[in-house]
């Protein structure tokens, strides 16, 4: 027993070093799996405050880009207004529904909530954004996040007033997408090299694709409503060995200056997830 104590005293520094290494590595691998680390709630609140202070300055320099993005979004939404469309024949008349039930409220599946981006990074391999809206303002993990121009990422953790969003520019991020023209489904990932481009995979070669085609979110992605722009085709890489395209996409969102985002709350997400999980359990 005495020798054990002597050993510990002799190599105390080395053992202490090993303990700290194990603690930090367990933090790292646990976070990579579940996106929950020790004290991340408190730490998120504190780093969020600092990020907010910095963003107060940075925001002025990005005003022009932010304004352009918002104007573009308004233009797109104006195009969708009912008044812009005219029925081709005399027979089709617009009529007001006389039913007295407000059916619109009940079936709204996606709820949008605006949030200010207070911290973001593009330079690392694992990029995150911090937004100024948290669990006290109805933000939960697993909510989709979009910018005025296209999709941004997914909420991974929240504190009372801030939330951390895993950006599309993260090595572990994937999103299910489809071609706007043909409807073939594939998935989008990031290879970690250039923050302006992401990689589209799993599109069969039978699909017709041209440079400049839009890639939008698919119906099967439960986080985003269908039809939200992800990116445009920039380069189609020839791969003779497989039956699938590998495509380089230009991201719709400019991750360098994104300032405002919308967090999308899918009100039926939990129900869908529960059903899918229970089915998976039954099969196994």
């Amino acid at each position, binding site marked *: 027993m005495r020798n054990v104590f002597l050993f510990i005293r002799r190599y105390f520094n080395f053992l*202490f070093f090993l303990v700290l290494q194990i603690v930090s590595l367990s933090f*790292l691998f646990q*976070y990579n799996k579940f996106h929950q680390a020790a004290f991340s709630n408190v730490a998120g609140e504190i780093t969020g405050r600092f990020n907010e202070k910095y963003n107060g300055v940075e925001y002025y320099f990005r005003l022009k880009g932010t304004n352009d993005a918002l104007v573009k979004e308004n233009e797109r939404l104006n195009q969708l207004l009912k008044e812009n469309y005219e029925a081709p024949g005399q027979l089709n008349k617009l009529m007001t529904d006389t039913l007295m039930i407000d059916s619109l409220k009940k079936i709204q599946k996606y709820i949008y909530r605006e949030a200010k981006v207070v911290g973001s*990074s593009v330079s*690392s391999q*694992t990029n995150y954004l911090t937004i100024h809206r948290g669990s006290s303002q109805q933000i939960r993990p697993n909510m989709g996040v979009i910018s005025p121009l296209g999709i941004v990422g997914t909420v991974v953790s929240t504190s009372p007033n801030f939330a951390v969003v895993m950006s599309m520019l993260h090595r572990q991020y994937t999103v299910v997408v489809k071609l706007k023209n043909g409807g073939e489904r594939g998935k989008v990932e990031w290879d*970690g090299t250039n923050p302006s481009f992401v990689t589209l995979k799993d599109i069969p070669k039978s699909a017709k694709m041209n440079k400049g085609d839009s890639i939008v979110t698919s119906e099967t992605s439960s986080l985003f409503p269908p039809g939200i722009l992800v990116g445009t085709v920039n380069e189609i890489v020839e791969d003779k060995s497989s039956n699938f395209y590998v495509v380089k996409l230009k991201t719709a969102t400019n991750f360098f200056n994104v300032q405002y985002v919308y967090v999308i709350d899918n009100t039926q997400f939990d129900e869908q997830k529960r059903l899918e999980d229970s089915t998976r359990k039954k099969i196994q």
Partner: protein
Amino acid sequence: MSELLKNIFRFALFIFVQVFVLFKVSPLHHFIVPYLYFLFILWLPFNLPRFWLTFIGFIYGLTLDYFTNTPGLHAAACTLIAYVRPFIINLMISQEGTDKNYASPSITSMGFAPYATYALVLTLLHHSFLVFLEWMSFGTFFFFIGKVIGTTAISLLLILLTELLFFRKEQFRTNTV
């Protein structure tokens, strides 16, 4: 200013410079990430006990980690260089008693060549470990080597610039005081 106050000030300053200046630089190339924050550990005083040195390294790395949302990544690398630091210093000190006569490692206290070697070895160690932890989940061996070399080169350049811009005058302390 006392040594303790000076180091607390440096702690905050290095973290903020790293998070709000260097990480905000738009990426030049995917091999290059400008890192400077670990210079804090290189500048810690000689007479700090090894236990505290390792512990400060851990806390310092973890602080940066909470800003970048990678808990444990920088903490592991910082703990490693903080632990290895005394070994390198023992090898590099040319004259007997440098660590008693001067407060902390610098060009004046150690001489240019030993200090440069000291910085090079710890920088290389820090980046190798950091990129290794990143590389475990993705990338190729070529990516690993390229990134370590690219990042180390940029870091050494930044360290040199910092040493020239903020020249630290080290007082020679005799043991008669």
